[in-house]
């Protein structure tokens, strides 16, 4: 073999991709791709089952990290230079407005897509055993997403940022016992100022992304160990459904997909121990129901990635992220509104600070976390879960209504106004 081939072989050590072995090795020899199974069930690829929302959320996160790092080259977290730096990004930096827009719209997009992803997981019952804890990790990821969006919101240091965070941190301070201290920890002072800007910046670029990455790793790992992406099990052909055997909860009659070892698969043997398996092992059924990850699954993921990126780019070309006047602690805009995903919370707070601001949201989060443990119905079929789905739908609708009211129906003094009234908060 010639030296070029030697060089290539020393880097890319798998068999050619035209062979089955090569396709498998691409997955399990490659550090970036080996979270995938070498083969996926065809049903995992169905667009209409998951809408690829998890992937979209993850890709939006990647967009945010990339554009965020780019923006970091031109941004200083000092008040008031921060505002000037954002103005410079708007007026002077090549592609400055475009990158800032991408960052903002991807952020809003990620909050929306992670919420929709949560809805999808609920409606497909994909949080049921053995995936309960992964649901909880998902809820934590959702909270971290909101935290990232919230900490980033302050960084432009304009009136919108300053007062939204003032309102947001004040809502948090209503928490009993720890509220005031939590607010002081977040702000590094008694009110939003230079210390708050620095703390929010560090949280936004280092701490929360780190937590997000760690939790995402666990989340993806558990998806694999729990049997791969969710698929509509209730749609299996009857004879296949008969063949499925329960694992772990022998008394429950409902079908859980199960491992029937296929003769043609390659297995890696880690260790030999005795004991009952508590979750699905290798996730292949019969050969004809699976297909290689390369190229089919990767292709679809790539399309999802490209659709997400081009979608964010298209929006960023035409719609500019807002920037109001420099933050002015002496001048409160009327009304002063929290970021849109907290407007539902602000609406609740306007009725009752403790009940609306602390108790109800805390109960909502606890209820969300407990969903897999409260729902003992082992069936994932929608027909068997009418009441669970109805309850969740009510939860979603209430959230949306609260946010809509807070956004469009509240004017100066938090008074009710007609939604078509122009609310000029800063004037």
């Amino acid at each position: 073999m010639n030296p070029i081939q030697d060089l290539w072989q020393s880097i890319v050590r798998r068999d050619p991709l035209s062979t089955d072995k090569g396709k498998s090795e691409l997955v399990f020899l490659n550090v970036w791709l080996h979270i995938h199974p070498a083969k996926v069930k065809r049903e995992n690829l169905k667009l209409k089952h998951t809408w690829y929302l998890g992937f979209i959320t993850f890709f939006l996160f990647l967009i945010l990290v990339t554009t965020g790092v780019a923006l970091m080259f031109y941004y200083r977290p000092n008040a008031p230079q921060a505002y000037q730096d954002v103005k410079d990004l708007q007026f002077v930096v090549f592609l400055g407005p475009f990158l800032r827009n991408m960052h903002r719209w991807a952020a809003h997009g990620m909050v929306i897509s992670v919420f929709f992803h949560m809805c999808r997981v609920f409606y497909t019952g994909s949080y049921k055993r053995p995936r309960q804890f992964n649901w909880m990790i998902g809820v934590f990821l959702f909270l971290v997403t909101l935290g990232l969006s919230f900490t980033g919101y302050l960084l432009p240091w304009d009136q919108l940022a300053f007062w939204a965070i003032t309102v947001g941190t004040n809502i948090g301070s209503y928490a009993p016992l720890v509220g005031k201290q939590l607010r002081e920890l977040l702000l590094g002072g008694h009110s939003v100022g230079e210390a708050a800007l620095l703390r929010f910046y560090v949280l936004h670029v280092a701490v929360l992304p780190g937590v997000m990455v760690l939790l995402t790793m666990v989340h993806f790992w558990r998806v694999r160990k729990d049997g791969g992406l969710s698929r509509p099990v209730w749609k299996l052909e009857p004879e296949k459904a008969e063949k499925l055997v329960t694992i772990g909860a022998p008394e429950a009659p409902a079908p859980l997909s199960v491992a029937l070892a296929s003769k043609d698969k390659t297995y890696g043997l880690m260790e030999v121990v005795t004991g009952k398996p508590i979750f699905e092992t290798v996730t292949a059924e019969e050969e004809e129901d699976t297909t290689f990850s390369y190229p089919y699954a990767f292709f679809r993921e790539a399309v999802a990635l490209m659709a997400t990126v081009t979608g964010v780019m298209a929006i960023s070309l035409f719609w500019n992220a807002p920037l109001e006047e420099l933050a002015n602690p002496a001048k409160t805009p009327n009304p002063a509104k929290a970021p849109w995903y907290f407007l539902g919370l602000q609406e609740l707070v306007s009725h009752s600070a403790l009940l609306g601001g602390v108790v109800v949201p805390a109960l909502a989060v606890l209820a969300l976390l407990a969903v897999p443990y409260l729902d003992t119905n082992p069936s994932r079929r929608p027909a068997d879960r009418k009441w669970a789905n109805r309850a969740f739908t009510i939860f979603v609708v209430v959230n949306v209504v609260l946010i809509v009211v807070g956004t469009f129906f509240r004017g100066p003094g938090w008074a009710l106004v007609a939604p078509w009234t122009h609310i000029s908060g800063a004037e």
Partner: protein
Amino acid sequence: MPQFFFALSLIGLVLILAAVWQASTPTWKTYQRDFHQLEAQGEPNSLAKAAALATPPVIHQVLLTGLQRVDRCTTCHLGVDDPTMKNAAQPFRFHPNLAPHTPAKFGCTICHGGQGLATDKANAHGRVPFWQEPLLPKDYIRASCGRCHKEGEVPGVPELTEGRRLFETQGCRGCHKLNGVGGSIGPDLTEEGASRRFPEWLERHFLTPSAVSPSSPMPNFNFTKEQARALTYYMLSLTSEEMGTYYSSVRLIPSASYGRELFVEKNCIACHNIGGVGAKNGPDLLGVTKQHSTGWLDEQLVNPELVYPGSIMPAYDLATNARKAIVAYMASATPDDAQLILSQRAKPLTPQDAAIEAGKQNFSRFGCVGCHGLQLQGGVPNPNSQGGEVPSLLHASDDYTKEEVITIIRNGKVPPTENTAKPAPPLYMPSWKSVLSDEDINRIADYLWSLQKKKDGW
């Protein structure tokens, strides 16, 4: 499916190219190209023409750390310091009479307003939402002189001096605070020039307050257009500019007229004379600039004891340009002028008259005339108060003792409401005990009592 992949890739490529194109073609590049073409037309030979046309487009910026701003106006306004562009169309026209306020040292926005950070026309001219300093209309640009030059007369801008005079004499302080002194009925005006740089609004407000502030209790003072303009100029000058040392050192205009103001303010005539007119304790100042160098005179003002040990002349803490102003005045001071100064000084008064005069000064300076009138006639509308208007003070002695009036001035008074179902009256007597000393308040009471109309006999 691969068609899908291809379509998305193509869309992605197109979008990236669109973004790069959008970022590469800002409008300022077009302006620069046009300017260089204009320049090339004026060049005599083809080499110079080619050089002008080949100038690469670049953002021009003036960094003004001492004025806390960055001005990029010259990115498009390229002819501002080029006399050959006298007749060019905007934005390339030459700006005459700039010295000493050159763009390199002062930028543009400190006088003209606008958003210096911006590089497109609409944002740079600042007439956009969320920018509080829009480009000033031509008639009001001279008001910006007052942003730095706050003391003394500014040559060429008499409106500033007139505006300040009107503010102090028409009673504005009765309702508005300025630099901590004044009433609290209306907004604090200390930073009015920073927060409301909208001259048309200000001028209309002075002419007819209720037209621009519908529920405002501010009375209509029936100002003339010139007076409203002067007051607008003064309002626009009410800013607190944070300036680096260079700017604060050149801020005061060392003119002879400012020097005369200081001469009067510091009461130099109390010890000195000019050509014999004045006091004889200190030396005659006539022609003093011919006898001594300006450096010597400057030192004399800073440190009199150093020049004349044992001198009783106080060491005034004057800024450099203030001292220069005094010396400039000394070069032109005449005995007739000294006579004028002497005659304008307050004449010796009996203690009682002095108290009444002091009370009258306070009554004007602290704005009481704003509501109670220059002749104490009252009459300013105060909706829903008993009587419907601010009362006249000419008959105060009929209803109150002097001590009661003093108490009202100290503690304030809310007028009784006519109809409690309707909103409370907007105007009220503020409490002045934290602003005025007891002695000042007593003098105001003396002044009021000196003007009481005797009640006609029953």
